């Protein structure tokens, strides 16, 4: 993981961060995100899409082959952010 930046969206009360990785997102990485919540994976899209939901906490979404994904924080506490970043770095 290289860096994160805040994404401005037309949404109320949600903090969105985009995460830039040092490589392309692969199927193994996506599978590992099961640790963070309910994983949905759509391999039949032209570029496979994934979404991880943790109720009341966050939604992570991205596309296989991209170098970035987005995290929608419903709870943007430091604890939650660190949990996600730690998981990303161990994959």
């Amino acid at each position, binding site marked *: 993981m290289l860096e994160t930046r805040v994404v401005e969206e037309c949404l109320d009360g949600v903090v969105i961060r985009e995460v830039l990785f040092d490589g392309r997102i692969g199927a193994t990485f996506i599978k590992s995100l099961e640790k963070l919540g309910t994983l949905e994976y759509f391999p039949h*899209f032209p570029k496979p899409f994934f979404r991880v939901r943790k109720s009341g906490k966050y939604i992570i979404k991205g596309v296989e082959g991209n170098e970035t994904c987005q995290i929608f924080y419903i709870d943007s506490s430091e604890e939650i952010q660190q949990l996600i970043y730690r998981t990303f770095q161990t994959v």
Partner: protein
Amino acid sequence: MIYFNNAATSYPKPEGTAAAMGQCLALPPSNLYREDVTQKSVITVCREKIAGLFHFSDPSRVIFCSGSTEALNMAINGLVRPGSRVVTTTREHNAVLRPLSYLCLAGGVHVDTVRCPPPGILDGRRFENALTRETGLAVVNHISNVTGAEADIGAIYSLCEARGIPLIVDASQSAGAIAVDFSSMPLAALAFTGHKALLGPKGVGGLIVGRELDLRIWKSGGTGIRSDLELMPDAWPIKYEAGTLNEPGIAGLAHSLDGILARGLSSIGKQKIDLTRHLVEELEKFDGVTVYSERPERNSSGIVCFNIDHWPAADIGYVLKDAFDIRVRTGLHCAPLMHRELGTFPEGAIRVSFSAANHHGEVDTFLQALKTITGQT
């Protein structure tokens, strides 16, 4: 890439628009107000074209600025009377709502907001009921940027005129989409932007001010002429155009206007209605799709707003962009009160907005993408 976000910014621009801007940049800079009488500047030419587009007889009352937001700030702050009431609607964009909120915060102005039920219907009787003896200004959106619903501006103007109330029309979505006849509205100001249906570049737009209206100066500064004066020169349009105009942008807009005028608004509108009808008819065959926008036959601006059960609008926008290379706009579209009316606040909705450059094949590709996403075949 399929681009369906034309209500935000139109793309692609007409052939030659970029070249017109480049040509302007390549020429030595000139001073608009010290114009050579034998050769009109591109700014004057564009002013005349804009006046022509809106059937307005006095090009000197076409004020250029950066776009609708600046134009609306200029109009609202230039016309509002301290201690008065301002009537507006739930259809409005934040370019209207936020300046009015600041006036309320500063004190001395009260805003009455007329409810507009789905798909954003501005009922004349409801609007009339909101007008009181204290009403000093009305601000109304011509076409909703969320649903494409059109307000009957002629009727709204008549209600205001009968009471001597100035009316500001936000024509951000209607300019270049439908015919707007401004010739018989001396008590109105109309804000437009160049980068949407007028097919021009970002950073250029303006305000047309009715011949019986005089705005308080909201922005002052250098004009390049009459530098001896303490205040702005008392002449149109210069007294409202302090600072440096976006000449390359205006040159691009002038070129884009030629294409619109050559093709005709009616032909452009018919194409958007056709695309809208095709999209809505097919969307209604989906399970779990709710369409919020104006009916296709009344939707010349080509704006279709909808949601899909179990798929947040933001996710659809993300997937369409990153997995299918299709651009739409999701969220609240800077119109939070309209989304409250639709019951889509705070998540918002998916908005598809067409330009005349779009075609049926793109709509079919888009529909196929939605089928793939939702698992409906």
